[in-house]
């Protein structure tokens, strides 16, 4: 993975930088000791590591503005960091950068049930947003697997999804406004408690811009009343392709479950070992969840079981109790941790048209045999967002490279069948160099032109998203 050569002049300025940052932040909010900056050397893409020059943990929007003004003046790159759960290396530092962590920006600022929104500081964790409103019968819908740890700031940066976005949409569909600090320290308010922004949809642009356009410090999020009830059914099949065909049939039939999750034999086994979820042993498993009153749930599950019956399922298990339902989800949401116990792995995130699921699953199986690396599949099948987990041995020379080549081939296949490189994790550094497989140079120039507007000096998270060869001209022009 190529990263820009760290700027020795900036590294030499470290004492001045630290002193100036300490002048605007409490002492404990500036981390510069080499032993301590190591804590920020990577995110959840652990294959790549590099300690930053220093890390700062501001607690207010104005502190963020002060930090950015200083970095802007000194020409120091800034890498914003939510909770560091990015699987794409979105928060990977460079040796000459400041990590701006939002962990101390964790307050709930306002809850408004009349207008159905909550305003929070961006370091608040995803699950704790729901935690702040659930006693009153509400929830925040996007639910990435890492929701216990991941920050709203990172959710906005990557436009995160989750299992239930089949019904409720991803972050961008649930975000009403942000307070954002531009690289030069200017604070802007975009959107707010109303449903639509007035002019250009800057909010839509900010969401998913991977921390390259500004640092989001506060967010207004849509909250929804909790459904009367929800219940999953497990459908086991004797082949992944048949399970894929069943998904397409469910969608086609007009039943819209809130979630359709897929797991293959490898993931069923490791998740069952990890979480004792009660999964049946089979080649492929679907978790299909529906919501509503008890009678509505029975009716919808009846329809789904009817559709599944055509595909000769080897297991049909309805969750009978809330505890069983919770265990089924615990198993699914622990998938990445569970496989992490048994192997190093790389998690892909390509999205494909649902109709292509059977074909793409078969091709991934063939590639696995070709590259000699096992692959497990666990993903949001309802919207075609795949998460092949390629296992490798980090201690075996060359294995990571083979894994990356395998991963790149899978993502190219996703694009080939009409899909995309990443559905919810983001590009980061991980998929940066594959962007030309999906977009032309002109397409990417149009995107980079937007960064030129928001961050003309190209100091915010500069080495991500765009292939370095393409972004080089912009980065050099900015110097």
């Amino acid at each position, binding site marked *: 993975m190529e990263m820009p050569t760290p700027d020795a002049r900036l590294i030499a300025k470290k004492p001045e930088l630290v002193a100036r940052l300490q002048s605007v932040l409490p002492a404990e909010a500036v981390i510069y000791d080499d032993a301590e900056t190591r804590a920020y050397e990577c995110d959840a893409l652990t294959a790549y590591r590099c300690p930053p020059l220093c890390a700062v943990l501001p607690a207010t929007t104005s502190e963020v503005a002060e930090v950015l003004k200083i970095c802007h003046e000194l020409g120091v790159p800034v890498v914003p960091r939510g909770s560091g759960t990015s699987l794409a290396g979105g928060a990977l530092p460079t040796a000459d950068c400041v990590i701006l962590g939002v962990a101390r920006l964790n307050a709930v600022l306002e809850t408004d049930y009349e207008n159905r929104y909550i305003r929070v500081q961006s370091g608040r964790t995803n699950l704790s947003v729901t935690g702040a409103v659930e006693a009153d019968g509400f929830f925040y819908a996007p639910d990435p697997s890492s929701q216990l740890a991941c920050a709203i700031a990172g959710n906005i940066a990557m436009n995160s999804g989750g299992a239930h976005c089949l019904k409720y949409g991803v972050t961008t569909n649930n975000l009403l406004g942000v307070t954002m600090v531009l690289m030069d320290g200017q604070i802007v308010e975009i959107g707010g*408690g109303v*449903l639509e922004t007035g*002019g250009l*949809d800057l909010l839509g*642009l900010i969401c998913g811009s991977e921390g390259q356009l500004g640092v989001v410090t506060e967010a207004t999020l849509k909250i929804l009343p909790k459904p009367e009830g929800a219940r999953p059914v497990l459908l086991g099949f004797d082949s992944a392709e048949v399970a894929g065909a069943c998904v397409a049939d469910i969608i086609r039939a007009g039943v819209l479950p809130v979630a359709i999750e897929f797991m293959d034999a490898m993931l069923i086994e490791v998740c069952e070992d990890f979480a004792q979820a009660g999964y049946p042993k089979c080649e492929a498993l679907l978790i299909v969840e529906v919501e509503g009153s008890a009678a*509505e749930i029975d009716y919808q599950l009846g329809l789904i079981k009817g559709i599944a019956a055509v595909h000769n399922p080897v297991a049909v298990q309805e969750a009978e109790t809330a505890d069983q339902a919770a265990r089924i989800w615990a198993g699914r949401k622990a998938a990445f941790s569970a496989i992490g116990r048994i192997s190093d792995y790389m998690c892909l995130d390509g999205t494909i048209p649902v109709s292509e699921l059977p074909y793409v699953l078969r091709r991934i199986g063939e590639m696995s045999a070709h590259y000699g690396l096992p692959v497990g599949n666990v993903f949001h099948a309802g919207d075609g967002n795949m998460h092949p987990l390629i296992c490798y041995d980090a201690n075996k020379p060359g294995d990571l490279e083979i894994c990356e080549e395998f991963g790149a081939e899978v993502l190219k296949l996703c694009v080939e069948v009409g899909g995309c490189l990443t559905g919810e994790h983001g590009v980061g550094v991980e998929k940066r160099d594959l962007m030309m497989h999906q977009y032309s140079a002109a397409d990417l120039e149009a*995107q980079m032109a937007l960064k030129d507007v*928001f961050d003309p000096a190209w100091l915010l998270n500069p080495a991500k*998203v*765009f292939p370095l060869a393409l972004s080089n001209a912009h980065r050099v022009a900015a110097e």
Partner: protein
Amino acid sequence: MQMTPTSEAELAEIVRDADNPLYIRGGGTRGILGDGAVLNTTRLNGITLYEPGALTMVAGAGTPLAQIEAALETEGQMLAFEPFTFGAEGEPTIGGVFATNASGARRVQVGAARDFLLGVRFVDGMGNVIKNGGRVMKNVTGYDLVKLMAGACGTLGVLSEVSFKVLPIPAAAITLAVNVANDGTGIRALGAAMNTPFDVSGAAMVSHSGSAGGKCLIRVEGFQGSVRHREDSLKPVLAEFGTVSECQDDPWPRLRRLEVFDAKVDATWRLALRPGDAAAFVTELAKTMTFSRYYDWAGGRLLIGARGSNVTKGSAETPEAGLIAFHHLLQKMAAKTGGHAALLKSSLPLDVARFQPESAGIAALSRGIRAKFDPKGILNPGVMG
């Protein structure tokens, strides 16, 4: 002068060669008035891909909305965001729907036009063909120019092709009507319905102009059994706000055509407000102005219609002057609440900024974006500021 390209390449050539303003026009139904040579997109038409099993369609921007909806209906599917139209006037195009982010009643449940737009192809102001997004449900590959193009009214590029998500038509629907004594009660009734778990898919209020009170309309959709269950569950919630009955005729098609005002109006505005602010906004406005009103999205959207001859209750010299004064008052009041007001359509020429003026910081960013995408300043100049 009018240019009607038949291909994206031809469209790109026209824009590349243009030095003077282009007035981009699909069906011409959405009240966007531009100066300059007309660039007509209606021959960039046709459905290029429809996969009912993947809930996606791809079509040329100039494809008539009616053609899209007819194709969807044969498969039992729909544009779930219910794009509004201006009655029988003209032939709206799918490009115009997305370029103006035109969403209707079901937005309150499923999201806006921009939330359903999956991918775009467009020609920027220099004549470059750009694509963004794709045709899959989840896509975070690079920046989201799809959202940026939705609602940009063609000012950043001329849409040539759009791909979008569709949904199944619900098996059944019921609308409850609640007669309420005043707007404040009505908005609270709509909010109470929204705050139940019964998945309300329409929450609007219609009123007679000049009179307090009106009728709340609350829709639930789904399987027959679900709809009955939700209706039975909602009735007691709504009963405390007024008399509840079940609508015998479906009121939503009329609302979707914006046939919402009881009197003829010269101009229509759309406002985005916090629902809790909407009724007080109307009360305040009514102190000095005469107008018709219609609340949608549980009060999050307010449509206002007015006649130049009586809007200012006689204080303006001409109908145009009256509507212009009204326009400025709407934007001033909307700004105070953190909302915004935009002129949707006017049958009289009004020399006003259609959209709410933005804060200095936002305006500078928007200007910067326009300068990058349309450096010649030729794409619908002045339409958005």
